[in-house]
């Protein structure tokens, strides 16, 4: 055999005598020792740093760039936040704005954000593994990696860990938080903010204790089968019920229903004139029902607001007697409804019923035929109602609201992947899991209770963003880092006026003292703003102040006494402490003041860009029409509004003009003179 012979000769050559052995061993030792510095030399991050130095070498500002460059491992360490970030080791140019044209990572400068890198580090926002020093370990989003980088479209989730308020720069997070409350997620899932506040729903699901008076069993069954077939905008999800399940649940809901009028029978509906649908349609428009309710038009577009339910097929749903009662005063049926109490006369009620009855769709109920319910079916229906958790959202006789019905989501943004059962085909990341769960809940198992939502992909991204903000870190951050939301207000106006404000559900649209909706102007300082005579007139017959506004204040039909009560209250209570009405005496304005104010109005300040004083000439379409502003607003309010409108009504579109006293006084003099402006010429012709 030749091989051992060769080996033998090699051995003799290398270790034949002590000198060769020493030399060989030294060489081996050197090689072994060289591995250590070589490994160090070839480290990934060192390669990036060299690459960076090559990149800046040829640039005009190479000297200053290389002066700011620090080689070696870099680290941002903030023990109180648990941050150990070495990202800046490779991302060397995060602060170098002059490298804006560099498109290759890891050398892109960080885009402008409101926080300093050195105060927050990287991982708090981007997640990933900050202490890692290889690309793979720091970012990896491979399967089951516990701390992957957060995909860019959910980045606002990280803002939500500290920001409990609504920052303007995080529209997606805000939208997601709104959606959690609006789509009823929070009725089944408990979600606590880091400040301990439990999120509440804003969707006001209707109570079902008197449902049999309102609609038919057939409608309930068809609705349960597919709520979106009745109204595309319905927020109730599809529970994917079988036909016998909808049959039994509807049987139970009818059986549990008790009459909502216990002592008196509902007044019969006024007779309707079938030919008066046209008149009813115009009344629907004049009463501004569409400020809150939407109806599909011929082109299939939804027209109207979303505060109340869509009415496209309302005629296929409600019973006429119930509808009449509801239109007379909705509170008799649902004391917590957001719908105001219109003071409608019998004729108007009849017209609206005529209009709404015409909004029917024979296809919707067409196939639903139900035989009378048996006791067994009713019992089964009750079991289903309990199983599906209907009482999480709806008040139902004999079924209590369940507690801890669905998993709590307070820490869902930190849920360990090892505890998650992924449906087939879902990538193993938390974001993908949450997305899949919202998109197709039943893909995780047919026995799951979560219903199927109809959401656009933007809405799902927003919901995911809000859920990914619910992290362990958010809960454990020092409280000082939390940016609080504006505190929820429980403001209730007192007395007779308070009752009227409640009766007309002013808070559904207007905000007063921190409580209420944002559809209409805030009224907290309304008493300082308007004149009493105008207010009484407006309450009785609200006219449109802003030409470009689509959603408008309805006419409630208040009586003189009611309008006076409300006006007295508003004028006395809703007064701003910011100024005194007496500071400006409008009786001392001269016509010269007004003339000078007019020049300023049209010249220096170009107010006509947004407002109309002379309807024949001005075209401004954004702010309220000012043709009769002298009869509407007080002089002091106008004066202070011109100086700083934002301080009087935060968030108003009027910019802060910071006018000097003379200018503000002159423009006020011009505006208070606008009392009985001639009607628009086009109207006279």
């Amino acid at each position, binding site marked *: 055999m030749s091989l051992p012979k060769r080996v033998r000769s090699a051995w003799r050559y290398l270790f034949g005598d002590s000198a060769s052995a020493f030399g060989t061993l030294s060489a081996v030792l050197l090689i072994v020792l060289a591995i250590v510095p070589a490994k160090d030399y070839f480290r990934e991050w060192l390669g990036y740093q060299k690459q960076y130095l090559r990149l800046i070498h*040829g*640039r*005009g*500002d*190479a000297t200053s760039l290389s002066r700011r460059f620090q080689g070696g491992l870099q680290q941002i360490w903030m023990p109180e936040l648990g941050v150990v970030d070495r990202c800046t080791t490779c991302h060397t140019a995060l602060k170098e704005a*002059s490298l*804006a*044209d560099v*498109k290759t*990572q890891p050398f*892109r400068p960080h*885009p*402008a*954000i*409101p926080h300093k890198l050195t105060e927050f580090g990287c991982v708090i926002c981007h997640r990933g593994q900050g202490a890692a020093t290889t690309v793979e370990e720091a970012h990896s989003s491979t399967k089951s990696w516990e701390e992957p980088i957060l*995909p*860019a*479209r*959910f*980045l606002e989730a990280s803002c939500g860990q500290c920001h409990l308020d609504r920052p*303007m*720069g*995080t*529209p*997606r997070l805000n939208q997601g938080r709104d959606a959690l409350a609006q789509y009823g997620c929070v009725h089944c899932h408990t979600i606590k903010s880091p400040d301990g506040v439990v999120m509440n729903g804003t969707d006001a699901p209707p109570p079902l204790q008197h449902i049999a008076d309102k609609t038919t069993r057939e409608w309930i069954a068809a609705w349960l089968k597919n709520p979106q077939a009745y109204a595309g905008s319905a927020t109730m999800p599809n529970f994917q019920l079988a036909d016998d399940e909808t049959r039994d649940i509807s049987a139970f809901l009818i059986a549990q229903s008790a009459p909502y009028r216990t002592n008196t029978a509902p007044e019969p509906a006024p007779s309707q004139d079938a030919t008066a649908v046209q008149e009813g349609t115009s009344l629907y428009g004049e009463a501004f029902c569409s400020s809150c309710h939407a109806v599909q038009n011929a082109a299939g577009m939804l027209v109207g607001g979303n505060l109340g339910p869509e009415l496209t097929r309302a005629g296929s749903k409600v019973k006429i007697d119930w509808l009449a009662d509801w239109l007379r005063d909705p509170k008799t049926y649902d004391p917590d409804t957001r719908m105001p109490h219109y003071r409608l006369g019998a004729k108007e009620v009849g017209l609206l019923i005529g209009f709404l009855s015409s909004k029917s769709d024979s296809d919707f109920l067409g196939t639903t035929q139900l035989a009378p319910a048996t006791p067994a079916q009713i019992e089964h229906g009750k079991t289903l109602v309990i199983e599906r958790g209907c009482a999480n959202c709806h008040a139902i006789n004999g079924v209590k609201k369940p507690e801890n019905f669905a998993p709590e989501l307070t820490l869902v943004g930190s849920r360990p992947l090892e505890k998650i059962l992924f449906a087939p085909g879902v990538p193993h990341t938390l974001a993908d899991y949450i997305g899949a769960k919202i998109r197709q809940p039943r893909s995780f198992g047919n026995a799951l209770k979560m219903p199927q939502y109809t959401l656009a*992909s*933007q809405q799902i*991204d927003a919901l995911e963003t809000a859920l990914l903000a619910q992290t362990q870190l958010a809960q454990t951050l020092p409280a000082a880092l939390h940016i609080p939301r504006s505190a929820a207000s429980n403001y209730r106006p007192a007395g007779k006026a308070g009752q009227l404000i409640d009766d007309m559900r002013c808070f559904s649209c207007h905000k007063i003292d921190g409580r209420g909706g944002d559809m209409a102007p805030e009224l907290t300082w309304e008493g300082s703003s308007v004149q009493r005579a105008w207010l009484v007139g407006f309450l009785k017959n609200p006219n449109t102040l802003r*030409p*470009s506004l*689509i959603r408008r204040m309805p006419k409630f039909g208040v009586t003189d006494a009611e309008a006076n009560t409300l006006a007295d209250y508003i004028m006395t209570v809703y007064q701003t402490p910011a100024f005194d009405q007496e500071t400006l005496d409008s009786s001392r304005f001269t016509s010269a003041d007004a003339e000078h104010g007019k020049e300023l109005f049209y*010249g*220096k*300040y*170009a107010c006509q*860009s*947004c407002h109309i004083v002379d309807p024949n000439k001005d*075209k*401004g*379409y*954004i702010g309220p029409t000012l043709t009769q502003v002298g009869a509407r607003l007080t002089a002091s309010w106008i004066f202070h509004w011109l100086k*700083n409108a*934002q301080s009087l009504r935060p968030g108003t*579109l009027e*910019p*802060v*003009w*910071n006018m000097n006293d003379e200018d503000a006084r002159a423009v006020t003099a011009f505006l208070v003179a606008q009392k009985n402006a001639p009607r628009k010429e086009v109207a006279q012709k």
Partner: protein
Amino acid sequence: MTRAWLGWIVLALGMTCACARRAAAPAEAQPKAFGSAVVLVSGDKQAAGVGSALDQPVVVQVNDDKGTAVAGALVGFAGAGGVTFDPDHGLTGSDGQFSTNVSLGGIHGRYQIVAATRDASGKTAEIRIDEIALGYQETLGKQVSDIHCVRCHDSESTPQRVSNHDNLTAQAHAFTNGATLNAMSDADLAAIISHGGAALGKSAEMPPYGNTLTKPEMDALIGLLRALSDPPYRPQGTFNAGK
């Protein structure tokens, strides 16, 4: 020895087979017809948040030499920087159009996507389409703009707001108007936003927003203008120049 060689050969064959199987692409949609040009129908220059899907699909049309739409032609979409398409290829419909939903990459800025088709001879015809990804700064700018600016600066009305653009004497520049706005420096823009048009010898119809908007809000607004600008904004300066 011979057996070892045999082993090597078997291994090499096995590897080749494995690679070949990987390389064989899934059954592609076969074009039923060929066109010679791709034209854009709609969906270019949309702005969406980083990593997000664009609101509207991108629609392209394949035409033949005479400019008539070709049904059944194969269209493929491609883009760098993490852009994804749903679907990324397919055949044009009976109207000769193909539509895809586009999601942008994770870094703010402009993305160029390419829609391509092949004619009968295998020659590629393509069209390049620009889309814009908004980062934090631009997103904030868009919020500010939606509240305070677009009513006058955007001549289009939407169901939510009526445009005031045509009610003004001076024509407010659209924020996409790169020809005008690119010539203004950030400082110029900041000055006109905070001091208003009158202070700079322009129309007083542009009010001063210096006491209404904060500095970061103004910077964000300028960031948005730069992002939307068409032609694209290239910052002035010497720092990109070689030594």
